[in-house]
């Protein structure tokens, strides 16, 4: 059963610009322009695109905050704009950069408020809280005022707050932004677990490709208010011909490394940047470099989502229109 149904949804904004002293110009901006997709129950979908592509406009329409200009929307069988308050009980929202926890009160108090506001039955509440506390390691933090938590701890606290009422759909906006590696891993593990065990449908917007690689079976790419790609993650790499970068530090400055299937992008003293296809393993490449060159140190960089999308976009723009 589809939990999210989006059918030819559009959203235009009227932008007024002043030109001259008295004249004002009205301009229509299409933030979302004929969007169609479905998300099945239990799916975890990455929703990505450059800034201003229409991501947050879509999420705002799905939560019922914004009324669409046209098209048909259903979330958990409900029209979000018409039944916003009723829908609120069935969705969870986490903004990575904005906490919904009570700053000056112990973490536990925020959960108690959620229990009352969402009218969560006592047994459900206790079971869900216990589960979140265990998986997210919150036990020691429950009685700490939120303002004293680290960013990673707070993010974990926010995730628990969004899940106490068993939402059918969870919207995540940059859930790992600004977190260190350990916190990121913990958050991702928890989300994977929740998606699998609770069958919670997850819609994730992020700039971190690793989030998507580790969590999402499916990626939707939006640009200029339209879907430019919808499919498994491999499609994204294929369409974007994305590359990872191996950064190697050699013992001494060296002429550009030459290896088959590798592009040497940049040389800076003893450091060199080698680009290779994202789907390919880095291990044989590292071995090859280590065998032929005096290798001191190395690191692998994942492709930036913007680059991948930019390549998809220039690719589709290069094709003759229509």
């Amino acid at each position, binding site marked *: 059963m589809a939990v999210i149904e989006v059918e030819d949804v559009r959203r235009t904004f009227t932008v007024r610009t002043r030109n001259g002293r008295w004249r004002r110009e009205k301009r229509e901006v299409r933030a979302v322009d004929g969007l169609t997709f479905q998300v099945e129950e239990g799916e975890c979908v990455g929703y990505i695109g450059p800034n201003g592509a229409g991501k947050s406009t879509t999420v705002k329409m799905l939560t019922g905050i914004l*009324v669409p200009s046209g098209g048909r929307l259903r979330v958990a069988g409900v029209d979000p704009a018409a039944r916003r308050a009723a829908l609120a*009980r069935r969705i969870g929202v986490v903004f990575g950069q904005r906490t919904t926890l009570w700053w000056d009160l112990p973490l536990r108090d925020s959960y108690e408020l959620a229990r009352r*506001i969402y009218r969560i039955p006592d047994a459900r509440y206790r079971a869900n809280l216990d589960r979140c506390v265990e998986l997210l390691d919150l036990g020691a933090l429950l009685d700490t005022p939120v303002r004293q938590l680290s960013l990673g701890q707070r993010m974990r606290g926010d995730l628990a707050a969004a899940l106490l009422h068993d939402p059918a759909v969870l919207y995540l906006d940059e859930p790992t932004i600004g977190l260190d590696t350990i916190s990121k891993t913990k958050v991702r593990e928890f989300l994977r677990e929740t998606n699998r065990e609770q069958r919670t449908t997850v819609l994730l917007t992020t700039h971190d490709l690793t989030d998507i690689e580790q969590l999402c079976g499916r990626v939707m790419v939006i640009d200029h208010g339209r879907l430019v790609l919808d499919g498994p993650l491999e499609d994204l790499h294929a369409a974007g011909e994305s590359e990872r970068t191996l950064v190697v530090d050699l013992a001494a400055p060296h002429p550009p490394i030459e290896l088959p299937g590798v592009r040497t992008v940049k040389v800076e003293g003893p450091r060199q940047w080698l680009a290779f296809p994202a789907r390919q393993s880095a291990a044989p490449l590292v071995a090859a470099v280590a065998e032929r060159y005096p290798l001191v140190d190395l690191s692998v960089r994942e492709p930036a989502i913007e680059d991948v999308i930019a390549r998809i976009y220039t690719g589709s723009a290069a094709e003759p229109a229509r």
Partner: protein
Amino acid sequence: MVERESLAARAGWAVRSWWLIAGMWARSMLTYRTSFLLGLAANVLITFLDFAVLILMFRHTRQLAGWTLAETGFLYGTSSVALGGANLLVGSVSGLGERVRSGTLDTMLIRPAPALAQLAAERFSLRRLGRLVQAFVVLGWSLTALDLRWTWDRVLMVPGLLLCGVVIFCAVLVGCSCVQFWWGDAAELQNSVTYGGATLLQYPPTVFAKEIVAGTVFGVPLAFVNWLPALYVLDRPDPLGLPVAFEFAAPVVAVLCVLAAGLAWRTGLRAYRSTGS
């Protein structure tokens, strides 16, 4: 699968949400104990000085436009209780513009509690009780000092007047704040209407030009908060010579104000949700 609720259930839920969220804010504020106590002290001091001005005035004259100190104290007390009560309940709606600008109204719209109740309870602090306490003290004193025959209808009129006054001020606060859905920095409009209006109501209507008094009857209906009902309680003639029914019209006016404010809120919220600025 999602039930539609009756109007009474929704109103009850709004009050409960307000109560829950206000409680969270009150406890948040109490975590800063010193700041809370200083704020409370300042609040009491300022409101006391406010009334001291009135007492000073009466040291030079026995009457103010034909009203005694006790009678003026009655007006002062009722006006302050009405505004103080309204400010305690919904005063925070004046922060609407800021929330619209920063987009933080969105986080209220994704919770299952009414957005107006959440906004009204925002930054609730027990410190606002200071004004209310002072207002009740002045009112209590004036009631004992008044030279009146306390018939039962007069006695009943006082709590009724206070209740309607609080409701009218609440509606005016909410209604005026809704302007901020369109003009984000129009908090001044609402401040001048409510605080300016409340100051007006602290003095006898005979002090002011008839046009101003008429404005508070037929324009923003603040005269129904205390001026008109007080004429009955204090047994005074109406400076405008209006029919006596006006002195009892406060409940009707209060209901109309609430309906108007509710309409303004719904319209504003709809505009916000379709522009999403």
